[in-house]
Structure formats: structure tokens, C-alpha cells
């Protein structure tokens, strides 16, 4: 009896993941904004917008004041480190206005889906249930349009949205030495566990900090999927998930190949680190 592992050559897929750069992949980052001028981002940020209140509704407008908190810049930096040729587009949905955050998230998500982004990084979520059905409709719309959503699970293990929805990739955090390592927990709402414990990432003002949280595990998977998508641009969200499942034991695989401990240092490129780990 065959299973899917027998049908897909995971080592060959890993070769593609290793060589993927994210080229041609457009990633939307719904967060606190991004400091596009940060040296670590090297011109990868193509646009910066925000969802701004306008009367009883919201509007989209370009912004140039970067990231006032640092959360979005860290996420963008992690994605860029893993997929250096991916186009990053920032949509600020947190900050500036502390009210209507779930509505801002919904409007930001709607924008990302209608703009036809390949990937959307959602290092955020809400535990409130009022807008769950609206969010779910949008997440399903993204699934059918081929936009892959990657969402951070709640750090306190509470049910949160949109991470709870099955049609996206939800990410929990754990400590991995290799930034591309992850676990796959099949059958659970939050299937992926990626590196999210003290990740060295860019911070506003051209600085770096160490960040911990599921928010920072999420962009690791976004970066990884960007690599996959740059090699296989036609893969659907379902196929990407299946591929992730096939690669689920990658960490062990790397260890079997004699991989050493690989730290994500700001001055070292991830590609170089991974080549080193694989050699």
C-alpha cells in the first residue's frame, strides 16, 4: 500500500526549497507597517499602505512613516532573509487607530485578496468571535483564488482567528536552530510549528532585536512558502499544504545529513547558512 510519501521525492523538493529565492512572488504583510528604508530590507518593500478610518468605513492610503511599533518590520525582515527576491507590500492594520482593529484586519485582508497577492503574512489574530463569519468568508475566498494565507496562532493557546480556519496555514512557535525547519501536526487546527523563539530580526531605526512569539514563527513559513512558490508558481494552497506535510520531517532529515546548529545571524545570509548545514 502506497502513501503520499512514496509518491513525492521530498529530498528533491528540499533542493528546490533551498534554491528558491522568492523571485516573482508578491507578499502582503498585514501588520503595524514596515520600515522600508531599513538596510536589512534592501529595497524589497515595494509599497506601504494603511487601512485608515474614514467616517463609518475605512479607506486605503499610502504611508511613509514606516513602522511605529517594530512588529511588522521584524516580520518583513524574516521573510526577506528567507526569500530575498520576494516583493514585499506592507498594509498597516494595527496602530495609529486603536479602535476597529478587527474591521481594519478585514479590510486589509480584502485588499490583499483583491490585489491578487501570492502570499499574505498575518502575524496577528483576534480572539473575538463577532466577525468570525466575515473573516471565514474572506479566508475561503483567498483559498479559491489561490492566495496563500499564513497566520500566527495565539500564543496563549486560545482559539484565535483567522489562525483557526482550515483553509489557511496556521503557525505555532518553537525553537529551531535552522530557520527553515518546521513540524507538521496533522489534524490539528494549528498544523505548522516553526522557529519563533528569539529570532534576530530588524527593528525600526535600522536596528535589530531578538523577538519571541508566534508572530515571528509565521514569517518563517511565509518565507519558506515564498521559496516554494517561486519555483512552483502554480501550486494552490491545498497543494502547498500537502507539500508542507510531505516535508514535515525536514528537521530530522537535516540532522541525518549531519547538519550543525545554524543560527540566523544578521550578517550571514540564510542561504549560506543552509548550504553550510546541508554540507
Amino acid at each position: 500500500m502506497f502513501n503520499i510519501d512514496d509518491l513525492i521525492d521530498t529530498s528533491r523538493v528540499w533542493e528546490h526549497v533551498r534554491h528558491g529565492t522568492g523571485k516573482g512572488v508578491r507578499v502582503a504583510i498585514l501588520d503595524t507597517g514596515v520600515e522600508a528604508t531599513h538596510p536589512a530590507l534592501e529595497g524589497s518593500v515595494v509599497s506601504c499602505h494603511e487601512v485608515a478610518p474614514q467616517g463609518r468605513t475605512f479607506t486605503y492610503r499610502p504611508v511613509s512613516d514606516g513602522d511605529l511599533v517594530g512588529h511588522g518590520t521584524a516580520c518583513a525582515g524574516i521573510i526577506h532573509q528567507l526569500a530575498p527576491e520576494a516583493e514585499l507590500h506592507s498594509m498597516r492594520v494595527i496602530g495609529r487607530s486603536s479602535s476597529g482593529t478587527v474591521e481594519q484586519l478585514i479590510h486589509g485582508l480584502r485588499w490583499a485578496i483583491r490585489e491578487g497577492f501570492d502570499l499574505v503574512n498575518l502575524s496577528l489574530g483576534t480572539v473575538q468571535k463577532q466577525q468570525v463569519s466575515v473573516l471565514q468568508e474572506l479566508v475561503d475566498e483567498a483559498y479559491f483564488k489561490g492566495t496563500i494565507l499564513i497566520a500566527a496562532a495565539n500564543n496563549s493557546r486560545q482559539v484565535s482567528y483567522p489562525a483557526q480556519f482550515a483553509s489557511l496555514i496556521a503557525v505555532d512557535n518553537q525553537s529551531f536552530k535552522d530557520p527553515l525547519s518546521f513540524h507538521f501536526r496533522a489534524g490539528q487546527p494549528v498544523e505548522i510549528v516553526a522557529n519563533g523563539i528569539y529570532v534576530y530580526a530588524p527593528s525600526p531605526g535600522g536596528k535589530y532585536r531578538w523577538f519571541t512569539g508566534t508572530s515571528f514563527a509565521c514569517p518563517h513559513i511565509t518565507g519558506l512558502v515564498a521559496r516554494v512558490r517561486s519555483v512552483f508558481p502554480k501550486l494552490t494552497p491545498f497543494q502547498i499544504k500537502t507539500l508542507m506535510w510531505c516535508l514535515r520531517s525536514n528537521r530530522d532529515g537535516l540532522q541525518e545529513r549531519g547538519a550543525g546548529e545554524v543560527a540566523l545571524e544578521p550578517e550571514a545570509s540564510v542561504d549560506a547558512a543552509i548550504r553550510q548545514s546541508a554540507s
Partner: protein
Amino acid sequence: MKADTFPPEWSDLLELMTDRFGRLSDHVLDNLEALLDQGRRVMNCAEAALMVPEPDGDHLKFLVSVNSRPGIAEIVKQCRVPIDRSIAGCVFTTGQMIAVANPEDFYPEVDQKTGLSTNIYLATPVLDREEILGVATFVNRPDGQPAEPFGPAEIAWSSRLTDLAAAGLRYYSRVCVQERLLAADVLAAAERFADMDSEHGSTPQFEDRDLLDSAPLARAMLALERLSDNDQDLAADLLAVLSSRGGARGVRSEI
């Protein structure tokens, strides 16, 4: 009529009501402080704080702060943090925990006031079911210890601690409401007392600031200082009715 013409028995009774009954929230805050201090020791950190939104909705204030160094907590409690440009604000908005190390100028305003430098920082949302009540923060290691970032076990502890803090905050909120109701009841009782005196030709009049400051009613008003602007307005209006003057807004600004 001067303050000393208030019947002393009545002043004593009002004082008892406002000083003893009306200070339960202080005890709750003390207990929250004790909880946080115990949590701070478990977390092996120098400072812990419980931040809650201010009525303006734009800032977080330090409702409770504990620090291994004497005097620092009081300074921290004077600070406020904008929700839209701080990690704590981001945690408050999203309900997602964030730990940061080597933050450098992460909290410049607080660091400038305390004279300390924030090296490691953990902000955990205080959640009550679907509602985010505030943010618990844990800062630095105690003096003399290396600035080892908070590990997964400590982060898990912080989550448990904030569950308890949420229960404490909810309790605090309920007690504040009860104190508000108590203050209203005291004001109503004083009004009835004034009416009775009026029938006997000796209506107390709030004629000057000295009288107002020394009156038990003023104490009741001062006890309301933690209330939101709207609640303070309501209380001020009650006082205006009681004093039969239009100057209650001026009293409110003193609160």
C-alpha cells in the same frame, strides 16, 4: 456656614464611609501588586507591571508596578505609553504575546524617567475570555544577574500569571463600580441631611473652597479620581445638585 459647623457626628460618619468603605479598591490594588510581585520573583525579573487602557483609548497606563529596586515602581506608575507606537500597545491591540531582547531605546520615556535601561522585555495580554483587559510586562533580570532572555518556560508562566491577573483586574473593576455607587449613595445621604438641616434653619452651604476641601463630600469626590472622565462628570454633576451651585465642573477639574 463654616466647616466646623458641620455636626461632628455627621462628619465622622461620612468620613467612615468614604475612608473605610470607599477604599476597598486600594486593597485590591495592593493584592494585585502582591500577586505581581510574587510573579516577578517566579519570572526572575527586576520589574513587572500591569498596564490598562486610559479612558482616552490612546494610551496604556501602569495600574500596578513592582520593582526589585525601591522607588522605581512609583516612577513607572507616572508613565503612560501610546497604544499605537509601543510593543505593549501592539500586544494590547492584537492579544498576542511578544518577547523582545536587546531593545536598546525600546522604552525611552520610561527608561529616561527611571534611569534604568530595558534589556529584556516580555509583554503578555491580560485576557478575560474575548476581552483584552490590559497587558502584563516583565522587564530585565534582577541586579547582578546576566540579561538572559525569558525562556519558553517563563513565557508559559507569564501566561498563567496573567490569567490570575485577569481575575484580579475584573474584580478591581467590579469594586470600582461598587465604590462609585457608594459615593453616589453617600452624596444622596448628605443631600437628605442637608434638607433636614434646612428644615431646622441651618442648611450647609458650599460657599468656599476651604469648606469644600474639608468636607467629607470632597473626600468622596477625591476618591473618584480613578474614574473615567464621564464618570467624574457624573459625580461632579451630583455634587452640583447637592451644592445647588453651578460650580461643579470646577470641582471636577480638581479631582
